[in-house]
């Protein structure tokens, strides 16, 4: 049906308009779905897109919700750029939170200012370790990293479940699967603006998230390592010819993205929950995949992409409360958005002609 020919140059207009067009089309689909299901589309759109932006504290909360998406998303951008499919970010996030939580719960009476940085480091290690497993299997045995990292997600989730119901369950939780609260030194505080006070739930973790994105962007653009990442995704032979070590690079990228996911997990718990419970992530690891694609695999754009997806999530919450629209509809939107972004990728790389079996094509 469609005939695809490779474009020589991609017009810049495509690179910008594809994400925008995808978003608009997704909204259109949304209107359609809402109407079919009998909801008031206008009100639904309001709750989805306007309501979360209507007050300054809501906008702050948008950043808060985007925070884990930004951090995990950036890590995934690095991996996807290198054609490494780390699908297990969710599990790495959980393990990062578990490692950090372990430290916090071991020192319940401490006031040390070093607790939080130590938790951050430990969370990076925890997530990195969970990513190390699929990485080493891929590098040594060529095992498919998609399935391994995915299976490990389920294992991590079950592990956390066991911890909070078993050995780490708080004696004061009345049988509920919760750990003790972290000591204050292990919590991430809200940002206190001089003269204004705190805005919504805005916490320091958001600042770190934006910093991480910008650092990654700088690294991709200006460093040899960034060049390495782009190269390994493009051509293995050229990569080896250039003198880089494929195994080392693959492992490093996996561990970095796992570590970042772990960091995101620690921040989520320390900033928003304060203790461990069976559900600390709400599919952030998978949603971050969409964020990475929406950002067209550019770390700086992950900031915007994360905010946009967070908007959909917050909108979903708001719409559920106000109009009883089931929360799962956000999955439908996210799926459609990803489909459209992928189609847009094809459009930028290839020229599409709807012609019946045409064969005049230049050969090499």
């Amino acid at each position: 049906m469609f005939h695809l020919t490779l474009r020589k140059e991609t017009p810049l207009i495509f690179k910008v308009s594809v994400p925008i067009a995808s978003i608009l089309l997704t909204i259109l689909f949304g209107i359609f779905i809402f109407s079919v299901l009998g909801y008031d589309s206008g009100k639904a759109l309001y709750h989805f897109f306007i309501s979360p932006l209507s007050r300054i504290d809501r906008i702050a909360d948008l950043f808060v919700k985007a925070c884990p998406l930004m951090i995990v998303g950036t890590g995934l951008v690095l991996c996807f750029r290198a054609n490494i499919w780390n699908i297990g970010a969710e599990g790495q996030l959980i393990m990062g939170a578990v490692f950090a939580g372990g430290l916090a719960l071991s020192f319940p009476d401490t006031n040390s200012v070093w607790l939080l940085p130590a938790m951050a480091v430990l969370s990076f290690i925890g997530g990195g370790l969970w990513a190390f497993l699929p990485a080493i299997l891929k590098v040594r045995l060529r095992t498919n990293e998609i399935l391994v990292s995915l299976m490990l997600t389920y294992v991590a989730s079950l592990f956390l479940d066991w911890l909070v119901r078993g050995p780490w369950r708080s004696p004061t939780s009345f049988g509920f699967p919760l750990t003790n609260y972290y000591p204050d030194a292990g919590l991430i505080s809200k940002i206190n603006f001089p003269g204004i006070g705190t805005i919504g739930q805005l916490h320091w973790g958001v600042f770190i998230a934006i910093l991480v994105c910008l650092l990654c962007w700088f690294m991709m653009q200006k460093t040899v390592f960034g060049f390495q990442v782009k190269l390994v995704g493009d051509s293995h032979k050229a990569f080896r010819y250039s003198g880089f070590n494929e195994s080392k690079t693959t492992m490093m990228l996996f561990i970095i993205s796992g570590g970042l996911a772990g960091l995101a997990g620690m921040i989520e718990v320390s900033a928003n929950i304060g203790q461990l419970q069976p559900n600390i992530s709400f599919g952030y690891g998978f949603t971050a995949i969409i964020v990475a694609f929406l950002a067209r695999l550019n770390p700086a754009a992950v900031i915007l992409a994360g905010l946009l997806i967070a908007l959909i999530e917050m909108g979903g919450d708001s719409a559920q409360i106000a109009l009883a629209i089931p929360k799962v509809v956000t999955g439908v939107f996210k799926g459609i958005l990803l489909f459209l972004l992928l189609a847009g990728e094809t459009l930028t790389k290839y020229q599409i002609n709807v012609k019946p079996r045409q064969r005049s094509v230049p050969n090499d």
Partner: protein
Amino acid sequence: MIDALILTILMTSVPLVLAATGELVVERSGVLNLGLEGMMLMGAVSAFALTYATGSLFIGLLAGIISGAITAAIFGFFVLGLATNQVATGLALTIFGTGLSGLIGSEFVGKAITGLPTLFPKHFADIPFIGAFLSLDIVAYSSVIIVFLVWVFLFKTKTGLILRASGISQYSAHSLGYSVLKVRWCAVLFGGMMAGLSGAYLPLMLTPHWSEGMTSGRGWIALALVVFASWMPSRIIYGAILFGTITIMQLAGQARGWTIPPQFLSSLPYLATIFVLVVISSRGSAKYLAPSDLTQPFISSK
């Protein structure tokens, strides 16, 4: 007692066999479908919804199959029509399918239906040991027949040969005049129907109700199963029974009051999958058995 165990294992294997066989055909043609989980959920919710609405299990099964095919058509449109990245598109399908099935299914949470009847008269089940094998429903028996038919198709027919060739070297197949895209479309649709049927089996037979995400990762295990079986239909059945057995151990263990934490037992299928993947890859033979052009999009202008 052991009969009940065998029966449960066999029944648990059925959705895995169906989904994995469909995926095997898809992958043999050169396409990787990571959207299995989403397709199965769409099949599950459609089957439940229509059975509840019409009271007919048959219509429910049909609905499952058709919705699997429709979901597969969406996947095919992107992956085959627009040559989008197969991994990402599959994930999008899973997220979409999970969300849409949850949306449609929200109406039906808490409702109940009666499951599929057994094919043979009930008192056959009383026969020691063999009784378990005779207490299955029609879908379960059909799954074995389907596996056999797929084997015959792939290795004894010319069309099956063409399909295999498309997965090995798509451009060679194209230069011989075969339409790689057509072959892949048929494979993808077949895979979708099987995924839909597999999903339908869950609410119609295994646990007669609907809940969000009720496939619980079976789609992913089915994907692993295809690799485990080295893309050979006969081995799918062995693998599925193995996985079914492991899944059951968790329930059996809890019932017997084993002190092993239930979460560990629940994690066994996933750990087993990883183990199997490692064993297969380390043998190195996977290279020669895997369809070499798997995940390569077919661009007709090349």
